[in-house]
């Protein structure tokens, strides 16, 4: 019987080995309170900057950065298992609510006193807060930017208001070229218009706002811009139009900039246009990237965890990330340094962030992406009545949220 077990075990090991499921180096950390494992999903430039910064803690604390492409799902599965879960994870703030509700996160203020976070931008701390507790140490943030191709649009021509943008679009959308394009029917992009009108997708209490007056006004106003853009709203189409010089301007993430620069474009970035109807700029969502602490590590490795957090509170890491990957630091002190203030893209993100809205971090937000996407398709692409469409979408969102309880 033992033989049989051993053989089965070995076959299992073989299959595991062949399917690439073998893991190594994980067992050592749980028994060693000076080793901290951090899961992340970041690009190499960001991971390398973090690794370099955290190596300064050696030999007192050894930090292992592990890239996990399925980080959010993996945490849902193993977050409660101290043997399998990481000690900390580096990710956007918008999943905080889900994990806090699961009871796997510790507020970082359990380790770092709140008053020591005064150097952080308010917006980033707001993003990190769920039900009154701060669950993330913000490191940097990303927000959409207004970008333009200087071959067509001079710096002086950059529209300061949405009506100027509309006039520019009318004048320059012809012959297969577009004055301006965006993913007009994707919630993440359309949110900037909705919030600029004072509307919202969902509020802090988990109540959808698709049928509120401000959201309806935003959808109506936005529609005339949509009519001057291509019907196709996919990420690839919109970015290709801009990258290939078929669109003069766009609203896109900073991740597009390296691509368009590589294609030879002289790309400019500018503040979001002010919506004439409200006096507010287009106010996109922002994602705050930072580090979260799992409850087990906070309770059992508090000394090492604190050292990691304090190392990442140094302005150096913000500067390094700005230089390495164009990340906009969350720590205000970084903006006193020339290396950061001389970066046009980072500074444009900071300006946009002053009016940007942190993506909701409550679990109910998960259902809003699909419902809002369908609403935008109905209004922008299928030409359905706005009032009827928002009522239907609101009802659907409320029902789905109810089902979550």
């Amino acid at each position, binding site marked *: 019987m033992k033989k049989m077990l051993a*053989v089965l075990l070995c076959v299992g090991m073989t299959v595991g080995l062949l399917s690439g499921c073998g893991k190594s180096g994980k067992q050592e950390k749980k028994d060693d309170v000076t080793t901290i494992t951090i899961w992340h999903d970041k690009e190499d430039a960001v991971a390398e900057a973090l690794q370099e910064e955290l190596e300064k803690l050696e030999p007192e604390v050894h930090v292992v950065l592990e890239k996990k492409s399925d980080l959010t799902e993996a945490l849902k599965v193993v977050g409660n298992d101290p043997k399998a879960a990481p000690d900390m994870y580096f990710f956007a703030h918008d999943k905080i609510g889900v994990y806090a509700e699961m009871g796997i996160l510790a507020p970082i203020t359990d380790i770092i006193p709140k008053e020591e976070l005064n150097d952080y931008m308010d917006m980033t701390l707001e993003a990190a807060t769920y039900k009154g507790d701060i669950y993330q140490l913000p490191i940097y943030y990303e927000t959409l930017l207004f970008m333009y191709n200087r071959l067509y649009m001079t710096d002086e021509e950059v529209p300061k208001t949405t009506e100027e943008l509309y006039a520019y679009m009318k004048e320059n959308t012809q012959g297969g*070229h577009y004055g301006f394009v965006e993913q007009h029917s994707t919630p993440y992009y359309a949110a900037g218009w909705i919030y600029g009108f004072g509307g919202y997708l969902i509020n802090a209490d988990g109540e959808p706002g698709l049928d509120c007056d401000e959201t309806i006004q935003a959808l109506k106003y936005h529609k005339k811009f949509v009519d001057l853009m291509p019907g196709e709203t996919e990420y690839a189409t919109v970015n290709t139009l801009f990258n290939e010089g078929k669109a003069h301007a766009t609203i896109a993430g900073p991740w597009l900039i390296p691509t368009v620069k590589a294609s030879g474009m002289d790309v400019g970035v500018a503040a979001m246009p002010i919506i004439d109807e409200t006096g507010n700029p287009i106010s996109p969502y922002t994602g705050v990237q930072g580090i979260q602490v799992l409850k087990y590590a906070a309770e059992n490795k508090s000394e090492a965890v604190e050292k990691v957090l304090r190392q990442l509170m140094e302005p150096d890491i913000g500067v390094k990330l700005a230089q390495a990957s164009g990340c906009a630091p969350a720590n205000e002190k970084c903006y006193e340094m020339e290396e950061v203030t001389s970066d046009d893209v980072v500074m444009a993100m900071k300006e946009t962030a002053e009016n940007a809205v942190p993506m909701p971090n409550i679990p109910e937000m998960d259902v809003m992406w699909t419902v809002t996407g369908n609403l935008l398709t109905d209004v922008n692409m299928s030409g359905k009545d706005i009032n009827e469409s928002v009522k239907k979408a609101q009802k659907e969102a409320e029902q789905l949220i109810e089902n979550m309880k």
Partner: protein
Amino acid sequence: MRKIVQKMSMLLSMIVMMMVVFQMPVKAAPAEDMTIIYTQVPQDWKEPCIWAWDEDGNNAFEAWPGETMKADSSNEGWYYAWVPSWANHVIINGNEGNIQTEEQILEDKNTWITVASEKEVAISYEQQTTGEIPEYVETFTVHAKVADSWKEPNLWAWSAPDGTNVYDAWPGEPMTEGEDGWYDMEVPTWVNSLIVNANNGEVQTEDLSVDAAEIWITVEENGSFDFTYDDPEQKEIGTIKVRVMAPTDWKEPNLWAWSAPDGTNVFSTWPGEPLEEDKNGWLKKEIPGWVNSLIVNGNDGSVQTSDISIETGKDVWLVVKGPEEAEVYYEEPQVEQQKAETKVENKKNDETTEKKNDMTIVWIIVAVAAVAVVVTGIVIVKKKKEN
């Protein structure tokens, strides 16, 4: 075992190659990354052009014979063109590409090429001309199609609102008539306003406000116009299907397709793209309808037909019997089914053998690994017993 290693190396190489191909960057040339190439050519080489590419096969210009070189008025007999610095493989040619040098591989710096004949070329990186090197000006092409009554059309171009003109005096410069009925002209990218005129400036369009991008303008007799940034000729024709019967010993046949005489290629790099299996033993590929020239090749481009001329906009069937023997049909011909079947059968057999070989490799690895671990397991059990 050596074969297994070879197979695995081949598989790995293919994966790496595929990754490289899919990650191939779009080539572009910011103004600061241009080098000037000067050339002197024999007197009977008319209108010298330069064709340039990089070692990955990215072309600097859309179509053979490449960029027409400009005569340097300060240095008689010298012509020049600006080339992206990454495109360091060049050919100088003349007489619409009918005479040419061999491939020259250059350093990333301004270059003076003296061509004595097709085979005799001298390269210098020391300035061989006198005076200042001309400034690089990025341009885009304006195409215009005008009414029959509009004779010798000219282009007038300027930048608004500052009013900087490209040409010294109205009516501007005459546009060059192409074989496709369109008149062409290159203008600097700082231009954003155009007027097409003709009959020595007596008839003209109103001002056109345009982007600095290749543009096609259609002008009616009364001067009204329409324009597009998408090539209207290409859009009208659509696509055609090319069906091919290739020799059985031509492995993995590819199609290379282009438009002559302008040399616009469908595919970015030789040997083109693989033909796909179709019914009745034919291989097929869908390509733009403006193509009028084809080459079928096999064995990774090492065997090929000569140029095959076809009519544009029509589906075509090619029966290739050898490098110099290809028959062209515009309706499906009756060919020896046996041959077609044999070819497909061979291909299937090849694929099956390949698959079998690949599976064999996988099973060998699984078996070796399983045996090793099982043996280890038994040893552990034995050790336990001993203990």
